[in-house]
């Protein structure tokens, strides 16, 4: 496990080989951290991420996007620990899986007794493009303080036929309409990445065969 400590920082991990990330960050008072994980292709990845919010007013944002295919097997295990009061954490993970690719998202939010006024949010949404693709999302909350905001949500869906028909009725071809849906779906977790990375991902989506 790597240990890091910083004032305000931002990292982006692009994972397009079978290399996993084991990360642990301890945030002190007033520190902030933004992490983005992008997982691409037919890869086997096991990411373990532990965030300890150890000082008041620390803030952590986690973003994840996986665009996976073939026999990809992607696992995220996230532990967000609110140890003290007045910290915020927000997590947004989105996955698009084709072929036989599968993803597992396990996200624990732990808010200790002393961590009043914690604001902890977590979302994990998945889009499956084939019958054999799989996505599991398991949020887990352990809340021991009473004055907190804690939200979570997880969905697994498919391309939306009504949207597709609406776009096609305006002359947008089926292939293009699907890609528009994918790009729209994938946009939200990319709020911290560079323009270059975002346009690289757009190329990646354009190349997906549907």
């Amino acid at each position: 496990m790597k240990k890091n400590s910083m004032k305000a920082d931002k990292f982006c991990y692009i994972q397009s080989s079978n290399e996993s990330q084991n990360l642990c960050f301890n945030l002190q008072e007033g520190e902030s951290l933004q992490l983005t994980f992008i997982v691409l292709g037919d890869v086997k990845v096991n990411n373990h991420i532990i965030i300890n919010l150890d000082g008041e007013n620390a803030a952590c944002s986690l973003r994840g996007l996986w665009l996976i295919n073939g026999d990809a097997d992607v696992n995220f295990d996230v532990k967000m620990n609110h140890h003290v009061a007045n910290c915020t954490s927000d997590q947004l993970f989105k996955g698009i899986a084709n072929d036989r690719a599968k993803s597992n998202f396990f996200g624990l939010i732990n808010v200790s007794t002393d961590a009043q006024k914690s604001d902890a949010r977590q979302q994990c949404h998945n889009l499956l493009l084939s019958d054999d693709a799989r996505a599991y999302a398991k949020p887990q909350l352990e809340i021991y303080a009473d004055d907190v905001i804690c939200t979570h949500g997880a969905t697994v869906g498919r391309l939306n036929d009504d949207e597709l028909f609406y776009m096609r009725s305006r002359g947008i071809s089926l292939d293009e309409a699907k890609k528009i849906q994918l790009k729209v779906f994938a946009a939200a977790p990319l709020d911290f990445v560079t323009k270059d990375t975002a346009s690289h991902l757009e190329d990646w989506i354009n190349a997906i065969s549907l």
Partner: protein
Amino acid sequence: MLKITNLHAKIGDKEILKGINLCVKAGEIHAIMGPNGAGKSTLAATLAGRDNLEVTSGSIIFQGEDILSLSPEERSWKGIFLGFQYPVDIPGLSNAAFMKAAINEHRQQQGLEPLSAASFLKMVKEKMAFVEMDSSFSSRAVNVGFSGGEKKRNEVFQMAMLDPRLAILDESDSGLDVDALRIVGTGVSKLHHPDNAAIVITHYQRLLDYIVPDFIHVLYKGRIIKTAGKELAMEIEERGYDWIINEEE
């Protein structure tokens, strides 16, 4: 322009359209009325090529070509436009990006270059003004958070952008207040010219005050049971559909 012959269509195991015959010539406006559940929207969706329904027999000839095997986008490229009864919202996709993708695919089909950003913006501005929509709607996500009236105006905006040969407008007037009705009504009527045609699905006379139809058809249980001139709308407004249904049965 359009000739529908003995059209039968089903959704799942349920037959919804049971032998529709309809002929629309360039320059004409046809109104289709009928009680809820008659099959009006299903007919509209069949014309636009929705794939969750199955045409079991009959034909749809559009400008001399059988279009039954064509995809929705191919029908759009040929000039068919469907104004949805329930316009779909697409979170995350701006109205402008949506129309840009549509316009440029139409142009590509015609062997034209994509529109320049400037000409596209000019066109959007002009057509938004046409339906009295604030230009801020172009950067908003398609139909997301739009009121009923704004959604229907957005349909007419898209129609103005695409300039179709045949517009099928499914209850473009339902849920509209007086102002929105005026905007939709005058909008559609201004877009009408001798080379195009419209099929207007409605429950009310009030839209037909703006868009005066050449024919009114009454659809009931998947069949057209009566065809008459524009005066029929007034009679339906006063007397409902029962007398027509009784006449038929």
